[in-house]
């Protein structure tokens, strides 16, 4: 906490001379005709001179309050939720709040003033709320000081509400806008206390509309792919289809002869990435530069390119699976968990159960294909991009160009989905390289096929579970041998290609197995890394998005072997759980999901629970399987414990939508490798669920435990749905699902 305090003192005490250091998003609540909706949202709206109270808050004389947002809007609601948190403490009039993106450039220049700017890990609220509340409280107290000085009364006699400062004894009032300039030089002796979530009177209490919705129903929201920069040319790119292969030759002359084509440039000959940024590396490939995308794309598609692939072509889904399967039988994996003696416990067990589960590489498949625009000049770089991490954009642009970071500006656009893919800035590196090479602004655009075939995929995993039951049918021992690709994109090469050098495990990839509060007297988890040339990274709910499926399916296998009901089994496993949320969520979903209700043959419920970034979540899915094996998910009843609900409608949206993504992952999603390259190329062979397959998602808030817990909802429903569906399928058909996706399995029954 001391660290936080110091950081915030520094941030709040230093009042920047320059006002308006943020990147204005140019939109406001749809409250008045004057609300500015700019087609290019990173540009500042017509300036309203205001006073910057601290790095987050600018107050104008007309009482308009601009709140800066460090967490980019990938669809989770941050552009609304972050200002709401500031507003809670600032006690301001929400109808006069504007949101704008905070500047990554400024954060780097001013000692990380905006704190953690990246988006991921369900954490925008949980990891930002402390400093955002402090920013609001700091400004509120300094506004009070300014009013107290104005009236020459003790500051303790001033109250603040709805952007108005009141001295009750004399009946005097001033608005925030009237005293803002005088609050700028005010200094606090110490940081004011911030509210406990139980004291909130705005968050969780008010129905707030999302600020960005009006821009997203009329086509005016500008995404990275929509950016128009004067003088920019379009680069269609193709990098070696087998990851890591190199360009051998290409027919530049024929491409250059086509209409609109300006140049053909080889990329990736020289690599400038560091170990920490290797996920953004410039892969070997070719860019065709033209006036329009269609000219560039058709010329690129028509161009003959030869690749030097070495032995990469020998790698396939099957070869990788054989290698992974073999690792499961190797003794001596790195120890991830050790409680009691699982090996001895299994020997002593009354009955044992063993099963192997597996999950494939999958892609984020966000709707907006990869794109980035860069303008590199002698003294400045500007980048326009859909990014989850503006700081990574600046880091990568600096590394690629050699320019110092203070001269690099990231203009974050609206973002057509992220899910973990837009964290590494590989697109930015291409744009910076090409702009520098061509000495003009360049917009890089990947086709859907290029986007799907050059992802940072969810890693593969296989796990061998051995469980033992005692005479009472309780799990007495569990031994998990896990073989999987790690996530180097997340961990950085400094950790040995994804592996934590100290413990020799990828802890991130083991979430959902090693951190569940089930009472297992003897528990051993061993890890084997099985790497390939395939780039991997964070996919919505890293690790747990596949482990919840594997682990919770096996728990149901144990329940079956013990002759126990899956809910009763879990209730027993959670008997010692330290966090009350586990049982509260379990009871909530069993109750609201009407666990055990009578259903026709071929229809059944499945239940599952897990933990994701501190959020306990659980689901009951109702699924029918036709005798021919066709799966239909009818409903999902979702429970969760995030402590407190700050922004209820955004929570509902995340849990509803996340369920669809989880459903796609269990039904269809799979990236397969042939000849060292990805087979799937588009939504015809990489299927995503559509509206006709969307189950009714019922979100229940009864699992919330309050207290000091504040966690997030970005990932939980995506990670829990596959397990609940798979468990329902077994109960409907008698067929145990031990691999995803279901499209590869014969689920027919009679």
């Amino acid at each position: 906490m001391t660290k936080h305090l110091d950081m915030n003192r520094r941030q709040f005490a230093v009042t920047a001379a320059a006002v308006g250091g943020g990147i204005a998003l140019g939109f406001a609540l749809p409250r008045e005709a004057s609300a500015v909706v700019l087609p290019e949202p990173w540009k500042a709206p017509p300036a309203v001179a205001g006073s910057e109270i601290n790095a987050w808050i600018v107050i104008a004389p007309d009482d308009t309050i601009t709140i800066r947002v460090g967490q980019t809007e990938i669809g989770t609601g941050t552009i609304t939720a972050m200002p709401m948190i500031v507003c809670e403490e600032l006690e301001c009039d929400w109808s006069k709040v504007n949101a704008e993106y905070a500047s990554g450039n400024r954060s780097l220049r001013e000692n990380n003033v905006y704190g953690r700017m990246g988006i991921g890990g369900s954490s925008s609220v949980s990891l930002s709320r402390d400093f955002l509340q402090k920013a609001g409280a700091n400004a509120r107290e300094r506004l009070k000081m300014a009013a107290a000085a104005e009236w020459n009364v003790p500051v303790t006699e001033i109250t603040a509400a709805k952007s108005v400062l009141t001295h009750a004894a004399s009946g005097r009032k001033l608005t925030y806008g009237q005293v803002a300039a005088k609050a700028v030089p005010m200094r606090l002796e110490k940081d004011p206390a911030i509210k406990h979530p139980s004291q909130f009177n705005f968050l969780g209490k008010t129905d707030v509309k999302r600020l960005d919705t009006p821009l997203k129903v009329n086509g005016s929201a500008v995404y990275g792919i929509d950016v128009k920069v004067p003088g920019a040319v379009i680069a269609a790119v193709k990098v070696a289809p087998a990851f890591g292969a190199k360009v051998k030759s290409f027919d530049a002359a024929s491409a250059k002869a086509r209409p609109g084509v300006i140049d053909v440039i080889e990329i990736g000959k020289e690599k400038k990435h560091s170990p920490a940024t290797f996920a953004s590396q410039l892969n070997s490939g070719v860019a065709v530069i033209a006036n329009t995308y269609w000219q560039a794309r058709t010329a690129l598609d028509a161009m003959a390119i030869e690749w030097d692939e070495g032995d990469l072509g020998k790698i396939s889904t099957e070869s990788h699976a054989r290698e992974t399967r073999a690792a499961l039988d190797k003794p001596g994996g790195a120890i991830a968990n050790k409680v009691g003696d699982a090996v001895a416990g299994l020997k002593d067990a009354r009955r044992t159960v063993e099963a192997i589960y597996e999950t494939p590489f999958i892609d984020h498949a966000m709707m907006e294909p990869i794109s980035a625009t860069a303008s590199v000049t002698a003294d400045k770089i500007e980048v326009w991009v859909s990014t989850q991490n503006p700081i990574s954009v600046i880091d990568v642009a600096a590394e690629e160009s050699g320019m110092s970071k203070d001269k690099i500006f990231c203009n974050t656009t609206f973002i057509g989905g992220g899910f973990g893919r837009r964290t590494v800035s590989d697109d930015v590196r291409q744009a910076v390289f090409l702009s520098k090479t061509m000495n003009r602004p360049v917009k890089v655009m990947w086709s859907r096929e290029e986007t799907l075939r050059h992802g940072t995929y969810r890693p593969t995993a296989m796990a061998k579970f051995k469980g033992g039951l005692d005479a009472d049918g309780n799990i007495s021992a569990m031994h998990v041998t896990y073989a999987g690709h790690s996530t180097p994109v997340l961990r950085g090469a400094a950790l040995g290609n994804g592996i934590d050098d100290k413990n020799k495990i990828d802890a991130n990839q083991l979430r959902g197995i090693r951190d569940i509060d089930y009472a297992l007297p003897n528990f051993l988890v061993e890890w084997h890394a099985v790497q390939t040339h395939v780039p991997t990274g964070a996919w919505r709910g890293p690790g747990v998005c596949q482990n919840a499926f594997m682990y919770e399916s096996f728990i149901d296998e144990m329940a079956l072997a013990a002759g126990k009901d899956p809910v009763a089994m879990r209730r027993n496993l959670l008997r010692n759980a330290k966090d009350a949320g586990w049982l509260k969520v379990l009871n909530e979903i069993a109750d609201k999901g009407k666990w055990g209700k009578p259903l026709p043959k071929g229809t059944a419920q499945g239940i599952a629970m897990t933990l994701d970034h501190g959020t306990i979540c659980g689901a009951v899915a109702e699924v029918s399987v036709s005798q021919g094996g066709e799966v239909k998910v009818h409903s999902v009843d979702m429970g969760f414990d995030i402590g407190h609900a700050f922004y209820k409608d955004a929570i509902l949206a995340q849990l509803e939508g996340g369920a669809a993504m989880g459903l796609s992952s269990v039904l269809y999603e799979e990236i397969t490798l042939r000849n060292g390259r990805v087979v799937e190329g588009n939504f015809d062979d990489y299927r995503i669920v559509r509206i006709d397959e969307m189950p009714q998602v019922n979100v229940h808030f009864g699992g919330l435990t309050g207290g000091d817990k504040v966690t997030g909802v970005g990932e939980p429903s995506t990670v829990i749905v596959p397990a609940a569906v798979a468990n329902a399928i077994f109960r409907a058909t008698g067929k145990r699902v031990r691999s995803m996706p279901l499209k590869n399995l014969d689920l027919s029954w009679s």
Partner: protein
Amino acid sequence: MITLNVNGKNYNVDVTPDTPLLWTLRDNMGMTGTKYGCGISECGACTVHVNGQAKRSCVTPAGSVVGAQITTIEGLSADSSHPVQKAWIELDVPQCGYCQSGMIMATAALLARKPKPTDADIDKTITNICRCGTYQRIRAAIHLAAKNTKS
């Protein structure tokens, strides 16, 4: 050079007739509300109206719609007052929002043809993809728009 009528105005654009309408709108006419998602008519992010019918512009050659009335999301209404847009705002449907232009255009065409669609009509007609999974709200918003549309 071809002439296209988009949102009630004629535009002379310098493209070959086989250039997809999507890229003609986006690159040559600067109308970026219509989105590229797949290029093969799978996802529907590029949906526009051609003579009132929903059409996937990524596989529609510009030369094939000369003389037709083309409507894009920018021209659906002047002020987001179309019942579908209003329902989308009312229910805060979008998350990332990238697919929503296409969703809204597909829905507007459906309602023009079938003012009170059933769930089965929606399942059959709205085949666009939303990766954020906003389908539950889309369905509710379609019914709300139908309710609010004066017949």
